[in-house]
């Protein structure tokens, strides 16, 4: 951990679509007196509240659970609210919108691709057997533990924004969609394997993943989409043969 002192930091922010420079990217710098314990989001708020109310970005929970504040900080996709500014260790903090997504205004990007990609994998439990009428379905602790590392995804998009395959093909379903698909396929209660798989076995699907692991590194929730991808590929091959 770095030594925490109050420090004047320079925020270098890549802006877009504001200040009479519509649809042109430009850099703007702000000075922030940062305190120990402050997050990048706190600093951006500080700028918005005290210096420039036109600076635009999304935020909601400010506790790392809603996925709104994903952006590129010093070159890495992260959540602004859970990135302690002092731990970055730089005097200048560079903030850009998430890569690969269409910019709308400043740090806010078009997030429509998130539900689009998600919906492609039929992201819900598909069952054929009706559940018991006044009881829950049973699931053993071992079965349930297969969902650990899969069900926690907050749909922030950091993984996809760091994925070279997505940069090359915006239709690529990408890591969180795969993770979600596997979250259901791995669920002992789910009976819709084929339906979840439909979109995966496609030129914008699984086979475009080159296992570069960027997504794993980017995930702020320490999830591992690559592991899900490998498991899905195995299942797919197995299904084709079987």
């Amino acid at each position, binding site marked *: 951990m770095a030594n925490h002192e109050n420090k004047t930091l320079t925020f270098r922010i890549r802006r877009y679509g504001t200040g009479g420079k519509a649809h042109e990217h430009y850099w703007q710098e702000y000075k922030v007196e940062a305190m120990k*314990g402050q997050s990048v989001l706190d600093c951006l708020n500080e700028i918005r509240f005290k210096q420039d109310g036109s600076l635009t970005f999304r935020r909601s929970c400010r506790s790392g*659970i809603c996925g709104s504040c994903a952006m590129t900080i010093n070159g890495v996709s992260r959540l602004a609210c859970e990135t302690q500014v002092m731990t970055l260790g730089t005097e200048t903090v560079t903030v850009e919108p998430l890569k690969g997504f269409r910019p709308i205004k400043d740090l806010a990007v078009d997030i429509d691709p998130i539900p689009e990609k998600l919906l492609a994998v039929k992201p819900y*439990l598909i069952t054929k057997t009706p559940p018991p009428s006044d009881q829950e379905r049973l699931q053993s602790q071992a*079965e349930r533990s297969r969902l650990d590392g899969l069900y926690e995804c907050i749909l922030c998009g950091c993984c996809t924004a760091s994925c070279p395959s997505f940069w090359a093909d915006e239709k690529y379903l990408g890591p969180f969609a795969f993770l979600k698909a596997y979250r259901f396929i791995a669920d002992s209660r789910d009976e819709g394997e084929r339906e979840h798989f439909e979109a995966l076995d496609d030129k914008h699907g699984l086979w475009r993943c080159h296992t570069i692991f960027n997504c794993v590194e980017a995930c702020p929730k320490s999830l591992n989409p690559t592991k899900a991808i490998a498991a899905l590929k195995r299942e797919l091959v197995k299904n084709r043969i079987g």
Partner: protein
Amino acid sequence: MAMIDPETIHDVKGVSVHNVHRHDVIVVGAGLAAMRAAVEASKDYDVAVVSKVFPTRSHSGAAQGGIAASLANEEEDHWEWHMFDTVKGSDYLGDQDAIEILVKEAPIVVREYEHMGAAFSRTPDGRIAQRMFGGHTKNFGKGGPILRACYAADRTGHVLLHTLYENCVKNGVRFYPEFYVLGLIIRDNICRGVVAWDVVNGGVHIFHGKAVMFGTGGHARVYRIASISLSSTGDGQGMVLRAGLPLEDMEFLQFHPTGLYIHGILVSEAARGEGGYLINDAGERFMKKYAPEKMELAPRDVTSRAIQREIDEGRGIGGKDFVHLDLRHLGKDKIMTLLPQIHELAWKFIHVDCVKDPIPIQPTAHYSMGGIPTDSDCRVLGDGKSRPVVGFFAAGECACVSVHGANRLGTNSLLEASLFGRRAGISIVRFLRDEPELADLPTDAAAEAIAEVEGILSSSGTERVAAIRAEIQQRMTVDCAVFRSAGKLSKLLEDVRGLQERYKHIRVDDRGQDFNMDLIDAIELGRMLDLAEVMVSGALGREESRGAHSRTDFPKRDDAKWLKHTLAWKKDGKVVFDYKSVVITRFQPKERVY
């Protein structure tokens, strides 16, 4: 009334009605209450969900600990026990008819979540796992704490929220994410829709439907130290006030005992449910002075007052305004499997490894017990008592049915949001079965909203929105928090009015229409100031201490005068009150000791 023509109306200095959308049901919000209603109604009708944030980014996703239901998966339990705890927890202000519905239907609602796919944690025999939570007990308070809170690790809200979103998607619900609803369209006591602002592209949209449902969440953001998301600004309650309708019991706001020091970010009660200790500067488990039997598992109002008293009397850690939550004795394994998110939060937000060090905490504004008065079928009551506004429904934290009375028990609000959200859906379906006509849109439906947006975009004052907001949040945190008194509240009320005056002279930096956060902040602030005025007035009026409302000048509960709900309207710039009696069925008010 003439039908509105979207092409021709209202072009006030550039802001115009962009589009009129028609759906059978217009659901405002995308938290548990709203989306549970949408799941229900979309089985039969065309449902639109309009939300200012993308659905899975709603506040509900932050809930950690659990959802209460007497499933008896872990040990004996009965809805009657759950009912007793809820009534007692409410300090006898909860309406017992509504509470009975809550506790009886709870198991159905939780099992339905499981059927929809929620990834609950499991017991060794494969059932939904349950944990302890403050105020939930065995045998009408005579036994110890009970395992009643159904959970998914400490990500219960996240799991339920995503499950509902997924099921809405499955049912073909139409989503309008990032549309900020500005106001209700109610004429002749019939709700005809809402007016909204398209946040991303700018522009006013009208949503015209037969039924409107509010699941717009709480208003604890009126405080600086608060656990709730930055978007929980009470817009729904604000819109209801502006529509000339009353709000109920707004003086009751819950302070959660364990907010991370300075941020106010919540450390779930699960930390105490799993055995965490509260420690003061002397290293003492001070709860033994305040709740010798229940200790750390006493209800929130009791625990928050205990912490605040320790702090006020100089026994905060190092004399500062926090105490310690100590989990170290639980050991690394238990912390990492049962409380992983708490470990992560403490580490990421204040760099404390709770396996090795205690967590600094302080009370934080958390939950709005008061809100929009409804009956138990979630119909909004225009007079606050018995007369529904036709086609207008509300559920969840924005509403007040009232199951929580003066103080909510942990895990009862995910339950309330889900259960009354579901009931709202059922109620809406019943309403639509009678095939009511689609009520006409008045030609001036959007006039007020357009004037508000236009006014803000062209404002030329000197006041910064952020400065006024910081001031109201700070003042509420200091003078209308855990302990209250007439002196401080009257001064605060004056100052709130002063801030309302200053609000008339704001200016915004961003004057564009697309993705204008400055505009949204300004709109939210206007509503927050209205709510603060009603909350402070209500707190000043209620001369007793009950549940979360604790008056140092009236330290006792006063059933003779105050066993009643407050209803508050804003009329001609003033707050006007009326009262209604509490529904008492099974449990007569008794002194509340833990």
